[in-house]
């Protein structure tokens, strides 16, 4: 009989109308991300040995880092990710064998301007050789990294 298929379709949509809601009201309600989710990057500065493996693994030259030699040790002074070119492929995180670079579950990285997207994970002066205690600058940088500050630190 012609129209049977149409009725079947209506039956499905009517049945669904009383079913469970499938969406969440996004900015007010958020869903939890899976542990492996590729969100905003996190850098543990204390673990990072400034080896540059992550920067080399990146297909798009997203990671720009600067380092200085202090007392025979490499000291990371700058670590900037040009997120606007990032593919979120995870090759950098995978290549870090010190477990310093990681993904977090932060998803809202959107900004109004391209340059604001840039992620400065470390930006600190190198300590002076020997005399200055190393802890102090490392501490502030760690805080910055934990906060995952975007370059101008301003939203909108």
């Amino acid at each position, binding site marked *: 009989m012609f*129209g049977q298929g*149409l009725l079947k379709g209506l039956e499905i949509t009517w049945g669904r109308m009383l079913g469970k809601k499938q969406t969440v009201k996004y900015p007010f309600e958020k869903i939890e991300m*899976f542990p492996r*989710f*590729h969100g905003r990057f996190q850098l543990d500065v204390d673990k990072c040995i400034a080896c540059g493996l992550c920067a080399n*693994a990146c*297909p798009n030259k997203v990671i720009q880092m600067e380092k200085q030699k202090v007392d025979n040790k490499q000291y990371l002074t700058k670590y900037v990710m040009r997120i606007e070119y990032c593919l979120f*492929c995870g*090759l950098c995180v995978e290549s870090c064998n010190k477990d310093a670079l990681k993904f977090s579950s932060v998803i809202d990285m959107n900004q109004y301007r391209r340059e604001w997207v840039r992620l400065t994970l470390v930006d600190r002066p190198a300590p002076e050789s020997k005399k200055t205690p190393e802890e102090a600058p490392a501490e502030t940088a760690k805080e910055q990294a934990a906060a995952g500050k975007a370059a101008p630190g301003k939203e909108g």
Partner: protein
Amino acid sequence: MKTQTYYLNLGPQHPSTHGVFRIILELDGETVVKATPVPGYLHRGIEKLAEARTYTQVIPYTDRMDYLAAMLMNWGYVKAVEDLMGVEVPERAEYIRVIVGELSRIASHMIATGAYGADIGALTAFTYTFRDREYVLDLLEMVSGSRMTFSYFRVGGVAEDLPEEFYPAVKKFLAELPGMCDEYDGLITGNEIFQARTKHVGIIPPEVGINYSLSGPTLRGSGVNYDLRKVRPYSVYDRFDFDVPLGKNGDCFDRFRIRIEEMRQSGRIIQQALEQMPDGPIQAKVPKVIKPPVGDAYAEIESSKGVYGCYVVSDGSPKPYRVHFRRPSFINLGYLGKLCEGWKIADVVAILGSIDIVLGEVDC
């Protein structure tokens, strides 16, 4: 009375072209006299970009071809590199590849099904398939961390093992999958208006399909039994019991219908793969810097759109000398111009949708 044909430009920005695709239609009234497809609006030069990347770094770019079934795009490329290097992939990795690959195929077919419904005017169906696709993407996100561009495959295996939470979630999904397919069948396939729009429209005769080198559901809709997973099994596909759904008439309806059937079959494959999956390593022993010997290799897999091939030439350096992708959507489009001739404008939308192209892959 003297009449004259005229030109109508469809696309590149038109919802029914599934992306930035353009067709120039020469029309006589409403009837198509000539159709000229104009691809290239999404061309990013992935093949050229690959020449400036190391072998591993090419993987994220393959995601961006068929972004609706990115796992399968990864697969073809890594398989070609593995063939070139003579790497033996561990069994567990092969099973994981099959599972995520088939999930990707399901996600892609869900889009094809829903978007085709929307093309014909059944917009409700679109929301249903997209709702269910989210479940598949959830599963793939658990595994790879991303929802569309996974970059999950590595030369010699996969990036990480399946997480614990994946197993119960995929079981739940597999249990629901037949019900989902029934829903699509009830909403779209059985709908008389839909059938009137698609049955006996845009018929591809089997021998023409073969001559034009079509593949995937587009070819199988014409009744040609050609599925690489069966005719030339790669990976571990020879260990699974599944059917290849075939069409009879080669019309839009058949091409649409077998995608839903393929989803059911993919569900069966995943089920068997989960049962048979052995323990073991997920990554073969591959040097950190991948430097295949001088030579070339070509590998093919059955992607959701058809036969996806990848040709890699190595000059012994850490970067590929040349990479070429055989993209099924692009080749399936080859017959579109001829296929549209003689049909009405509204049928052009139905015909284009039934081929299921994805522009990232067409333009590469």
